[in-house]
């Protein structure tokens, strides 16, 4: 049992023991004996002293007088002080005039109240409504109470309370928070939280700082920062509002003078001439169109309102008489021109208000100067913040480029993975296998099936890789033996036959696994992303896919160039009869090579399945791109496949970055680009030279 006497001076840990507990102990504690309390806990007395002394001030509190009282309460060290302030703020604080004491009151029924003494915690039941009065703080006082309460929370011994209140300030910052935060920083002991405090203090200084010098220096300190919060706080300070006047007013912080319909906003916040090219390339429009400027004039009653089409038509309908209006038959009113003419004639006869013509609009707008002024009055501050923002934007642009590059590389490695198997079967053996996509799908489904039996995700992936390879290797060998062997040197027939296989396999997968997507779950260590900063990040799965494609590339290159099997493969590809006469069995080599290409497709299927959904149409999504990758890169050369994947991946991301919302369009343009590219490099980026090229 904690000794009551020590409660106030204890370490944060002990205090954490719970505020609740202390509060409940308190009734007992105080009523037991005030005299047993050690000097360290003299606060209730001090508190009650304050309450007695400042009774009138609390009762009729005003913003002017309440400051010292709140300070005194905060410094009293009394544990119930926060509760007191809270009740005061939410208008649950009452007082009794007969003994000048404060209570927290709750209604028992409509006439009587139960009172809890604010200091002692004594309860008195059945007090009539006439005996007590409510303390009603006005809104200014409530705001002060708010910050005082905040101070309590920010200095709370509970770290989570401090962190939560910090977050709440971040969400909804008010000017008065600045001093509160500054007070709290001094006492913060948690290093992480202290860092957050300092950051928040700087952000609040930017927004609400009193002296412009401190705001300027803070703004400069943020130069180049990639923090999203910083940008979110800096931008509002540069908000402008558009105004107009006969002559440019002197007392504003002018951002730019706007010429309606002619200027747009430059990077530094000034006005710059608008050209049609801007619109063509960036769909940027003039900052203020002529009619928008006029609407502004109308809004401020500086110009007569326009008659829009609806009003005009309504007026025409209202003035119809005997099937005619404004000198026209109603049936004639089927064009804008006639309707305008009819309205004008109505206006001439004084029945409706005059129309505003384009010339009127031009004249009215031309007689005023339009400008955008910063809402922030201090010009030095806006300049400093503009500079900071520009430096931030520059570094954001650079980092976005970096992010784009990472994206492009990761997309390229996915294309590479999907195409690498094809680089062997199509690229090296010249067998066009339309079922290649279905081998990728089979690999992904193998992974899914393995995960049904091996619940540990890490283990299951390790098991799935050889399983997928074996399954697709076997499928590849079977396909080669049963179909492709009969069709060597008849490429179009091979294409058709393997397409038949592809239809059958896809439908088979649908029959077995159903049409809905099956999950292939990545192990936890592949969850999440490698976060470099607020702009640059890349998910671990993509990093893994990148690693895998590097591994495949080197492995395959090594197999084809440094092993006996690779040598024989190349020999058979270049001249099967010569190879056969050298003792190589071309049948066997063809079978194994085809199996190898298919097996690699299976492993690629696992990698692709980890980040995409596994469906029976998984292969469909990659087959055309895979062929493109191989063709663009140059057939018969895995370096070419690497180059092709790189080109396609980078290109697609580049096109996407122009219009990020439309990936479909990006793919369309990319394919068109490829078709044009093949015009100039029909044999791909890395064309084989010499005799092999004709094979």
């Amino acid at each position: 049992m904690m000794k009551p006497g020590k409660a106030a001076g204890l370490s944060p840990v002990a205090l954490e023991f719970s505020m609740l507990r202390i509060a409940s102990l308190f009734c007992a504690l105080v009523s037991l004996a005030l005299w047993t309390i050690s000097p360290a806990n003299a606060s209730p007395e001090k508190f009650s002293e304050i309450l007695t002394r400042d009774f009138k001030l609390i009762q009729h509190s005003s913003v002017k007088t309440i400051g010292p009282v709140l300070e005194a309460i905060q410094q009293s060290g009394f544990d119930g002080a926060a509760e007191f302030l809270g009740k005061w703020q939410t208008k649950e604080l009452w007082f009794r005039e007969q003994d000048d004491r404060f209570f927290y009151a709750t209604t028992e029924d409509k006439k009587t109240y139960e009172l809890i003494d604010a200091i002692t915690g004594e309860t008195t039941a059945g007090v009539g409504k006439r005996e007590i009065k409510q303390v009603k703080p006005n809104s200014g006082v409530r705001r002060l109470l708010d910050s005082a309460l905040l101070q309590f929370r920010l200095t709370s011994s509970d770290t989570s309370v401090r962190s939560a209140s910090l977050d709440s300030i971040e969400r909804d910052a008010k000017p008065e928070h600045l001093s509160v935060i500054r007070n709290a920083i001094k006492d913060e002991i948690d290093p992480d939280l202290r860092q957050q405090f300092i950051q928040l203090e700087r952000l609040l200084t930017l927004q609400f700082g009193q002296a412009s010098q401190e705001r300027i220096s803070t703004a400069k300190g943020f130069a180049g920062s990639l923090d999203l919060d910083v940008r979110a706080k800096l931008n509002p300070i540069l908000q402008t509002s558009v105004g107009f006047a006969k002559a440019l007013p002197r007392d504003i912080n002018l951002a730019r003078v706007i010429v309606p319909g002619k200027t747009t906003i430059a990077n530094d916040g000034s006005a710059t001439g608008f050209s049609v090219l801007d619109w063509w390339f960036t769909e940027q429009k003039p900052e203020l169109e002529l009619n928008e400027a006029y609407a502004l004039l109308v809004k401020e009653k500086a110009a007569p309102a326009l008659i829009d089409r609806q009003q005009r038509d309504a007026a025409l309908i209202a003035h119809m008489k005997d099937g005619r209006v404004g000198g026209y038959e109603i049936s004639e009113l089927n064009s804008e021109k006639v309707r305008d003419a009819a309205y004008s004639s109505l206006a001439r006869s004084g029945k409706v208000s005059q129309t505003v013509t384009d010339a009127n609009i031009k004249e009215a707008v031309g007689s005023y100067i339009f400008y955008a002024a910063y809402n922030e009055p201090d010009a030095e501050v806006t300049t400093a913040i503009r500079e900071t923002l520009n430096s931030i934007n520059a570094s954001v642009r650079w980092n976005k480029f970096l992010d784009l590059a990472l994206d492009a590389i990761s997309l390229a490695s996915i294309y590479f993975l999907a195409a690498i198997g094809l680089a062997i079967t199509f690229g090296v053996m010249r067998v066009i296998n339309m079922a290649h996509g279905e081998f990728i799908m089979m690999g992904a489904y193998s992974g899914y099936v393995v995960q049904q039996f091996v619940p540990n995700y890490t283990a299951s992936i390790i098991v799935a890789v050889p399983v997928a390879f074996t399954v697709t290797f076997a499928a590849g060998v079977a396909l080669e033996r049963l179909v492709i062997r009969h069709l060597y040197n008849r490429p179009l027939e091979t294409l058709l036959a393997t397409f038949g296989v592809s239809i059958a396999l896809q439908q088979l997968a649908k029959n077995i696994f159903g049409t809905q997507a099956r999950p292939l779950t990545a192990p936890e260590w592949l969850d999440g992303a490698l976060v470099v900063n607020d702009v640059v990040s890349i998910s671990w799965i993509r990093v893994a896919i990148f690693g895998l494609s590097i591994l495949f590339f080197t492995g395959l290159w090594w197999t084809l160039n440094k092993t006996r099997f690779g040598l024989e493969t190349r020999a058979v590809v270049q001249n099967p009869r010569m190879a056969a006469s050298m003792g190589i069995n071309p049948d066997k080599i063809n079978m194994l090579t085809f199996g190898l290409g298919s097996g690699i497709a299976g492993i690629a299927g696992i990698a692709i399945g980890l980040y995409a959904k596994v469906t029976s149409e998984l292969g469909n999504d990659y087959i055309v791109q895979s062929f493109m990758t191989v063709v663009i890169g140059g057939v018969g050369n895995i370096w070419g496949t690497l180059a092709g994947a790189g080109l396609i991946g980078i290109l697609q991301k580049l096109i996407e970055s122009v219009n990020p919302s439309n990936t479909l369009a990006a793919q369309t343009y990319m394919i068109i680009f490829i078709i044009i590219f093949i015009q100039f490099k029909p044999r791909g980026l890395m064309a084989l030279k010499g005799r092999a090229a004709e094979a």
Partner: protein
Amino acid sequence: MTDLTMPTPGPGNEFGGPLTRFLIRHPSGIWFLGLLALFTLGITVLSEGFGLDLISTSLVKTFGKTLCFCLVALAMDLVWGYCGILSLGHFAFFGLGGYMIGMWLMYARTEIIVVTAGAYAALPMTKDEIDSAIGTQIFGVVGGSEFPAIWTFAHSLWLQFLLVILVPGLLAGVFGWLAFRSRVTDIYLSILTQAMTLALALYLFQNDSGLRGNNGLSGLQNLPSLESTPQSVVSIWFLWASAFALGLGYITIKLIVESKFGNVIRAIRDDESRVRFLGYNVEAYKLFVFVLTAIIAAIAGALYYPQAGIINPAEVTPIASIYLAVWVAMGGRGRLYGAVLGAAFVSLLSSLFTGGQAPNISLGIYEFQWVDWWLVLLGITFVATTLYAPNGLGGLFDLFAPKRRSGDG
């Protein structure tokens, strides 16, 4: 030989125009036209709309659509079976034709609806108001109301008819010119055409393509200002139109393949370099065939989609073009009746088995469902056809007919 400009002496020369003489010299054409006429008449007589009400309207439509498939298969046979270009893009041209005619159908019908509704307004509608109301009706699903530039001619049936020919023709022309010029041949050409098809499909899938993205064009079965005519009658009209187009297409393609031109393209199929060395402009021949077949495919599509009622980008994806190749291969390429036979046979079987009408077969422990297994069977049959019966269904005729020069079907 069968050059039209220089008729060889023979019994057919004595009477009739050149076409009649041509047909007499090639009786298979007469056979084909006769059977087609008989088929069309038979369906008409038995149909709900005109005759005995033994064939439902939806079945009439299925037959009409099948005739369109036969026409596009003929085109595919010309470009692939005779000229050796395995195009995986001809169904995209088919779809484009459908889109072009669909634009008019949708526009005209919406215009009628808008104008009818506008008749009750206090003021007569202006042209702008009508346009924007139609735009809202058509593009509301993709969150737009403005007409994209490609709809400029949608108000006019004749201009849109012209576009049915021009748009796919131009696309095929530009693509073919690029591809043939750089000597892309064989499988590379196939892959490239597949890429073109994919690009087109992806483009159409976008919401801001101007053709309603994913939703495609719908309600095409309702002919503008003919709402009162029942579908049973309309379906017969389309059957006739499709049959007429198929007959015309058959004769046209027959004329081409039996001419000197036909010999050249067959020679290109068999050995392109040799034909080039003989001084022929191979690229021009190929381009002509490619564009012509694209236009025939587009016309087939323009007849097909008003019967189908809806077109969306999924119809244009590469897989559809590959199925087209499958039809022709199964029917037997390099002979015109083979392509027609393959398209009719496979597409009718497909709609029978995937429509869920065919009875399931109970195999004791497993219920064999045609819907599930049809594609597997088709795939396997197709592989077997390619391996063991390269002449396809048409090859069956060779068993009965006296031995003839191949490719002269």
